[in-house]
Each structure stands twice: as structure tokens, then as C-alpha cells.
């Protein structure tokens, strides 16, 4: 148990470290949200000074960090200049949209990658394995930016899928069933882009992990007992190969909030991606810090989940941590 506690403490330290790092970078940053107002002759310099004081931009960094921490514990995570509202609720709305997209894509990608990888490993070096290897290699050399834009161009030219946004204009007037359909249609492109960009890595890892155990003596013994091939592969081989895959799965969980930034921007999905980009361009620093912190919390959670799963599934780790 002390092992898990140590991992938890580690995750917590990571989050603290990232928040401090993010704050440090704000001091290095030249300019702030109110700088552009200085050019406006209708705003008096005193107003700007007052504004800076109001948002505590004139206070030294440690004090700002402490007051920000305080607001984190009150569920606010600082204050957005542009929206004139606490950051956390703003981020939550966007994060929900992002999660809708990424959870679907992650489930889909794993759902495709597991059977494909296992199949590929079972037929190592044979025709199916070659096709899959070439397919993943082809997907791997097309960068996600080109992939997403390509899908977008395709959709625009064929009119198969709606492009941009999350819902149609008439969304509010639709029946529940049609609402779901509309949403699913809008999700199609970004989800496809996400799945295609993560799939090759997953398939390759599953293939490598399963290929490693496939010729272990215990599997030969199981085969000798006449256990059906499918059961053998998914019931016996896959769990034995789970160790590296669990780490990868934890990574997938950790990337839920951060893996889709670019694709969201390209597909104009109203998630964290476009929101953060906008905040960066406007120098709305607390939103940026909040976004980074949000994704770090997910990352830490993903890492911790991996540790828990490995601890639960792999007896070697339990004994190792007990002997320490």
C-alpha cells in the first residue's frame, strides 16, 4: 500500500510543480492583458493602474501564487480578464466537450487496436500482419495536422459530414433522437482524425506485446489442452502481455484533455483547444494556467491509474515494493 501512497504523493507533487512552473513563466512574459488598452486614448492611465490593481497584476509573484492557490481551493482557479468570470466554470464547459470527443475516440481506438494488434501478432510475418504493418506505417508518416486537414477537405468536397462546430443551427428544436444523431454526425470527423492519429501507435504496441508472450511455454501448454484459439489469445495471451499496454492505456487516459488540442482547433470543435488558443492570443494568463493545470491533473490521474492497475495485476510490483 505504501507503494500506492508514494505514487499518489508523486502525482500531487507533479501538479504542484507544474503550477509553479506555469506561474514562473508568467513573470518572464512581456506584456499583459491590459497592454493593448494603453494604446486607446479614451482609457486613462489611472484606469489601467486601477485595473491592474484590481486583478492583482501589480503584486509580487509569490503573493499572486498564494492568492491563486487560495482561489483554486475555492473552485475558481483565478479570474479571466476577457470573460470577467472565474476560470474553473469556463474551463469545465469546454473540458466537457473535449472529453466527449476524446473518450469516444480513445474507446474506439482501443477497441480497434486490440483485435488488430492481436491478430497481427498471431499471424506474425504473414499476409495480415504485413497489411496491418504497412497500414500503420502509412498512417504514422502522415502527421495529424495533414490528416485532420485532409479529412476536412474531403468532407467539404463530398458533403458527407458536417464540418465545424458541435451541433447544427437548428439543434435546439430537434427531438432527442435527432439531437443525438446530429451530435454524432458532427463528432464523426474529429473522432476519425483522433482515432487515425492514435491508432498506429496502439496497434504496434499491442502487436509487440502479444508477440512477446505468444510463444511462452504456458501458452503452448494451453494450446495442447485444446483451448480454442480465440480464448487462448484474448483470455490467456492478452493479460500476460498487459504490462506495457496498461502503461500505454494510462497514457491514453492522461492525454484525454490534451491530446486533441490541434484537432479541435482544425475542426473548430468548441473544446479546450480553441479556447486555450484564444486565451494565449489575448494574454488571458489565468485561463492558460488553468488549462495547463487541468490537463496536468488528468495526466497525473492517468499515471496514477496505471500504477494502481499494474499494482493490482502484476504481483512482481507488489513483492518489489514490499521488499523495499
Amino acid at each position, binding site marked *: 500500500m505504501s507503494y500506492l501512497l508514494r505514487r499518489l504523493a508523486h502525482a500531487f507533487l507533479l501538479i504542484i510543480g507544474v503550477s509553479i512552473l506555469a506561474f514562473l513563466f508568467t513573470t518572464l512574459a512581456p*506584456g499583459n492583458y491590459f497592454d493593448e488598452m494603453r494604446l486607446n486614448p479614451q482609457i486613462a492611465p489611472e484606469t489601467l493602474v486601477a485595473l491592474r490593481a484590481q486583478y492583482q497584476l501589480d503584486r509580487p509573484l509569490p503573493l499572486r501564487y498564494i492568492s491563486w492557490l487560495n482561489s483554486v481551493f475555492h473552485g475558481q482557479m483565478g479570474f479571466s480578464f476577457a470573460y470577467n468570470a472565474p476560470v474553473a466554470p469556463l474551463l469545465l464547459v469546454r473540458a466537457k466537450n473535449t472529453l466527449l470527443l476524446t473518450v469516444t475516440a480513445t474507446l474506439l481506438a482501443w477497441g480497434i487496436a486490440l483485435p488488430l494488434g492481436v491478430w497481427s501478432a498471431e499471424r506474425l510475418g504473414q499476409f495480415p500482419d504485413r497489411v496491418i504493418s504497412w497500414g500503420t506505417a502509412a498512417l504514422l508518416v502522415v502527421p495529424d495536422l495533414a490528416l485532420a486537414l485532409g479529412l476536412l477537405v474531403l468532407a467539404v468536397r463530398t458533403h458527407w459530414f458536417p464540418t465545424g462546430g458541435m451541433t447544427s443551427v437548428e439543434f435546439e428544436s430537434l427531438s432527442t433522437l435527432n439531437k443525438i444523431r446530429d451530435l454524432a454526425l458532427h463528432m464523426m470527423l474529429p473522432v476519425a482524425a483522433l482515432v487515425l492519429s492514435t491508432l498506429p501507435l496502439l496497434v504496434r504496441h499491442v502487436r509487440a506485446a502479444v508477440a512477446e508472450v505468444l510463444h511462452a511455454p504456458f501458452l503452448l501448454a494451453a494450446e495442447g489442452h485444446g483451448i480454442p484459439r480465440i480464448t487462448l489469445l484474448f483470455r490467456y495471451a492478452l493479460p500476460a502481455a498487459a504490462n506495457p499496454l496498461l502503461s500505454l492505456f494510462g497514457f491514453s487516459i492522461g492525454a484525454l484533455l490534451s491530446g486533441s488540442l490541434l484537432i479541435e482547433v482544425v475542426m473548430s470543435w468548441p473544446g479546450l483547444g480553441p479556447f486555450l488558443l484564444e486565451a494565449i492570443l489575448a494574454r488571458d494568463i489565468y485561463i*492558460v494556467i488553468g488549462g495547463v493545470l487541468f490537463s496536468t491533473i488528468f495526466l497525473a490521474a492517468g499515471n496514477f491509474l496505471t500504477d494502481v492497475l499494474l499494482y493490482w495485476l502484476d504481483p512482481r510490483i507488489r513483492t518489489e515494493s514490499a521488499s523495499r
Partner: protein
Amino acid sequence: MIRRRKVKIWLLVLGVLHSIVICAGFLAPYDPVEQDRKNPYLPPMRVHIVDARKHFHVRPFVYAFQLRPGAFDQYVEDATQPRPLKFFVTGDRYRLLSLFAARFHLFGVENGRIHLLGTDAFGRDQFSRLLFGGQISLFAGLLGAAFTLFIGWCIGAVAGYFGGWRDDVLMRVAELFLALPWLYLLFALRAFLPLTVNPLQAFFLIVAVIAAVGWARPARLVRGIVLSAKEHDFVRAARGFGASNFYLLRRHILPETSSVLLTQAAILIPQYILAEMTLSFLGLGVPEPVPSWGNLLSNLQQYSVLVSYWWMYLPALAMVPFFLGYLGLASALQERPNPYTIERRSLGSLA
């Protein structure tokens, strides 16, 4: 031996690809920022060898475009205006390798202009912009990777060689950087740097940002190698003879990291090219009018461009061969005899 040959082949492929981009001035028919406002969004010109009357021509030619009657942004080929392709023509002035001024171009046409990949909103030649943009993107990737590897190398060497609290501190920070997704880190780092800068500053800013993001993984790898290398008997012997730390690192330990650094370079460079593209695509990188692979694509963020001018997408495919090259190189460098295939073969002979 096969591995070595594979590495050589991929290096050759990459060499050819990079020389194409380095010779952008010679291969591109026009200056990348030269505008032709009367011809915005021309579609790619097709190179013909058979004309409208089914006559065969030895010298390839393109047709000029004319506006489709009744439309203001759609062009059709004008069969009455062939433009024969001329090779080694004199045209816009450029500097080859930014050293030699020259006016020679590989190809061009005499009356009018030739646009193999069409033109953008200002009538600038997309083909020329693509080639010159590659110089920015590839150079950013290479320079960024070089910086990253240098930083990672130094940090890894210090952490691995001296150990103790230095190791602890450096590796905790490295874990922090490893934990964060790189695009986020890139975003965050870029967010806190000046937004409006001139192209040259922007370029070096991006290189610095990209380099600062990725040092952790090479540092950890180098540290691992240094940790094991400093326990070699010949290193201990040299230490016994009174060799200084610096001498030991330089003469005996760091040379062992070269293969890891090479592999890391092959992995990092395409990532960094993509990082530059992403930043420039989002408007956080190299600004107009200087072309880069990223900001060539940023036009596509406008819906009208996406709908009407699909050829603006073509530059996105330019990096695919580069990615293929680096991926091939990386996997050739990492290749080891596969224990499973050997095991499999012996099992097969058993059965």
C-alpha cells in the same frame, strides 16, 4: 550488415530530400513573396505534352488560365495560349545557400507565369512558397533538435556522472517535462513569450521554445548510459591514473552516447518540424509573408478557402516523404535481431 545498409539508404533518401529544399531558389521558378494580384487562387497548372488538337509536342507546355465566363473566381484553361516550358531560364534573383547570388532557375515559361501548385490569395506561386517554406520548417526542426540534444546531453552527463543531489534535482525536473504533453508545453511556453515579432526573431523564438520542451527524454537516456559507462573497468583504470572528470567524460564516457543521440535525432527532427508547422499554422510561429509549411496551411482555416480552393491543401503532403525518411532511419537505427523470430524458427523446427 543489413542494418548498416538500411541506415545508409535512408540517409541517402533524406539527403536527396533535403538538397531539394536547400536548392529551393534554383528549383522554384519565382520569389516566394512576389505577388501577382491579378491572379489570385489559380488552380494548379497541368503540364501537357499533347495539345487541344491532339498534336504531340516534345517540349512540355502549360496553358494559361482565363476566367470562366460569368464567374469571378473560377478559371478554365485557355487552349489558345500555350506556354512552353523552358529549362535553365533567368528569372528572379535569389541566393543559393544564402551565399551565392544567382538568377538561374531550373524551369520557367516566357510569356506569363507557371504555377504548378496554383497560387494563393495574393497570386504568389504556391510551388515556390512550398520549397522556400521547407527551408524554414526543416531548419527549425534541425536546429531545434540540435539544441535539444545538446541540452539533454549536458544535463544527462552531469546527472549521470556526478550523481547525488544533482542527479535527483535534474531528474525530477526531467520527469516534470516528460509528464506534460509536448503540444501543451509548447502552447504554454509560447503563451508567455511576445506575440508580435519579426520573422527572424519569431524563427529563433520558436526554435528556442521547441528545444526547451524536448530535452528530458534524451537527458534520461544519456544519463542511463553514463551511469553504466562510468563503471567500466577502463574508465576506473583511467581514473586510477589520475584522469580528471572532464577528461574521463570527453575521452571515455560521452563517446558511448553517440548512437543514442543519433537515434534520438532521427526521432526528434520530424517531431520538431511538425511542432514548427503546428505553431505557424496556429499563427504563433513564423509570420507572413515569410513562408513556412505551417503558415502555408493556415489559409485553410478560412471556410471559403477550404470549400473553393482544395489545392491549398497540397503543401500538407510535402512533409510526408520527410517523415517517411526519418521514420525509416529511426527504425533502421533501432533495429536489433528480433528474439521472437529466432525463437519462432527454432520452435517451428521442433514441430
